[in-house]
């Protein structure tokens, strides 16, 4: 009895910790935590701090002095830099919106089981794996002035002269749709299959037609998933970089914010300006995501009856 009385405070502490889930198992997290801190959080904080230390001799310092906000002031004062935000949003938002909206009816039709479903989903994975660089390269050949696409349009007689679809705004949007749509579609499809199909059957026994079923049952259950799908699609579209250079017009029409950041870092070697641009880029993106997630928080997000 005496020994247990002596040991009890120590045991009690270990108990209390173990009860809250703190025990030696958590040591397994250590390598991953070190990893994220060293390679993600530290660079981020470093970049943030760097963005408040403008590089001597840089354009920003020459114009706005060496105060901590010189880089940011420079960014927002210079239309060539500032407008990259709008350029990026103008490309990213419509592309992401289109990808999500187009995938809803298609996924809704394909939510059941049918022959060849796996083939279709497999084909759709191809552009995701190929990535933006190859897609851009393919677009240049396919949609260029002498490419098959324009050739078909002219042979059918829709246009007389080749339509310019590459090296401009539309080229980038096309490349974002080709890589982004399958992504949005597969995500939407998996959210849809997670909704218990008997719910719709129950609604139909209560007299709801397909539109009412979709409007009142499926859509509300799908909406939170769509919000996430939109966020992830937007993240992909917002970070557009290689295709903006390759199939866009990187000097003007498709000078997106990531090009500005890259330009500052690796062509002007102004790392603080580059960090500032990266931070602004992150902030703009988080604002959009925050708005979408804020809207999502007001939706029903409980179980969708699926077993997945």
């Amino acid at each position: 009895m005496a020994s247990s009385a002596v040991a009890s405070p120590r045991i009690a502490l270990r108990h209390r910790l173990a009860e809250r889930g703190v025990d030696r198992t958590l040591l397994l997290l250590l390598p991953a935590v070190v990893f994220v801190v060293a390679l993600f959080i530290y660079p981020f904080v470093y970049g943030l701090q760097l963005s408040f230390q403008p590089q001597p001799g840089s354009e920003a310092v020459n114009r706005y002095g060496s105060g901590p906000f010189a880089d940011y002031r420079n960014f927002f004062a210079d239309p060539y830099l500032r407008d990259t935000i709008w350029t990026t949003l103008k490309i990213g938002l419509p592309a992401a919106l289109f990808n999500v909206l187009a995938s809803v009816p298609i996924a809704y039709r394909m939510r059941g089981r049918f022959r060849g479903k796996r083939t279709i989903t497999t084909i759709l994975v191809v552009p995701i794996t190929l990535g933006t660089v190859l897609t851009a390269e393919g677009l240049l050949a396919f949609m260029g002035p002498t490419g098959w696409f324009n050739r078909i349009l002219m042979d059918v007689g829709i246009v007389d002269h080749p339509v310019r679809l590459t090296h401009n705004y539309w080229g980038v949007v096309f490349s974002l749709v080709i890589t982004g749509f399958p992504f949005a579609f597969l995500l939407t499809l998996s959210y849809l299959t997670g909704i218990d199909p008997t719910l719709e059957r129950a609604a139909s026994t209560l007299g709801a037609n397909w539109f009412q079923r979709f409007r009142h049952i499926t859509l509300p259950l799908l909406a939170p998933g769509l919000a996430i799908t939109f966020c992830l699609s937007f993240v992909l579209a917002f970070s557009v970089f290689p295709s903006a250079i390759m199939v866009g017009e990187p000097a003007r029409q498709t000078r997106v914010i990531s090009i500005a950041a890259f330009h500052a870092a690796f062509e002007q070697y102004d790392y603080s300006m580059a960090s500032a641009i990266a931070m602004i880029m992150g902030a703009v993106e988080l604002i959009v995501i925050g708005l979408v997630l804020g809207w999502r928080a007001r939706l029903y997000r409980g179980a969708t009856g699926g077993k997945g």
Partner: protein
Amino acid sequence: MSQTKISELRLDQVSREFGGVRALDGLDLTITGGEFVALLGPSGCGKSTALNCLAGLLPLTGGTITLDDRRIDTLQPEQRGFGMVFQNYALFPHMSVRSNIGFGLRMAKVPKGDARRRVEEALTLVQLTEHADKFPAQLSGGQQQRVAIARAIVLEPPLVLMDEPLSNLDAKLRLEMRTEIKRIHQTLGLTTIYVTHDQEEALSLADRLVLLRKGRVQQIGSPEHVYTEPANRFVAGFMGYRNELELPVGSVNEKTVVLDGLGAGGLTGVRRDDLGERAVAAIRPEDFTVGAGPNATEVTVEVVEYQGREQAIQARTDDGVDLHLRAGTRLAPGDRVTVSVPPERVLVFAAESPAAPEEVA
């Protein structure tokens, strides 16, 4: 078979808290070698907590466990050498039936030949010899449960722990496996602690029942004792005293009590508690008889459920008290009948004492 016999397992004030809630509150229990003890109670009563504490899967927050004067509550589960059968079987899905059963022997570094012989014996005992090379996913629920039992007993542990082992099986298989567990216990004589929420299972299997409620022991005793003499209203409700009639107390004697409001002469029963102005009479449906007798009262039949040889009847007295009873004769809703119950089968408890939860009644 050689047997690892123990003479005594003692639990002394065993307690377990979860975030300030006492899931198990000072359990005292002494188990002698070869005994089959059932821990019985509704969900959340602490029975599974008690079992996991015994297994070592949950550390205690207080108390001691001693096995033949050796303190074991500080040992890791793998050092205790107990066998355990889990509710969902917890078979190793990537191992054959044979390897599942042999796993413990391999951990104990039992020589190969010896181990093989013991696995074969265990397979024979649970009648799975022809399925020995299958994988768990290829077996039915009942067969999986047999593997789980074989795995737990092949080491002939000093203590076998069973955590609701039959609750995932369908009704027919459950009866079969119940007999099987009883047979294995009779063959090997291994000390067993069995957790269940099914009082019928506990009554039929165990030498001794431990009834738990909110982490506290309500009654410990032989099945017969607990069945006929429940210690309190909770145990009564749990053991099938489905009628719990709250009535005003008429007259109280040393052993008996008369309650007002049921039949002309009131309801006479056995006094089990100190009583206030109101009391609860607990009566089993099967203790009622249709026809005149002691404690007779006239009722109107409301609902009749056909149950083979008998009918389960819900009836209402003229005062609006609902009674559950059983009848061998055919009755129909609307019939007026007289029912009676012997006073010694009417247990009267204090009205304030806690009742058993609805769903297990």
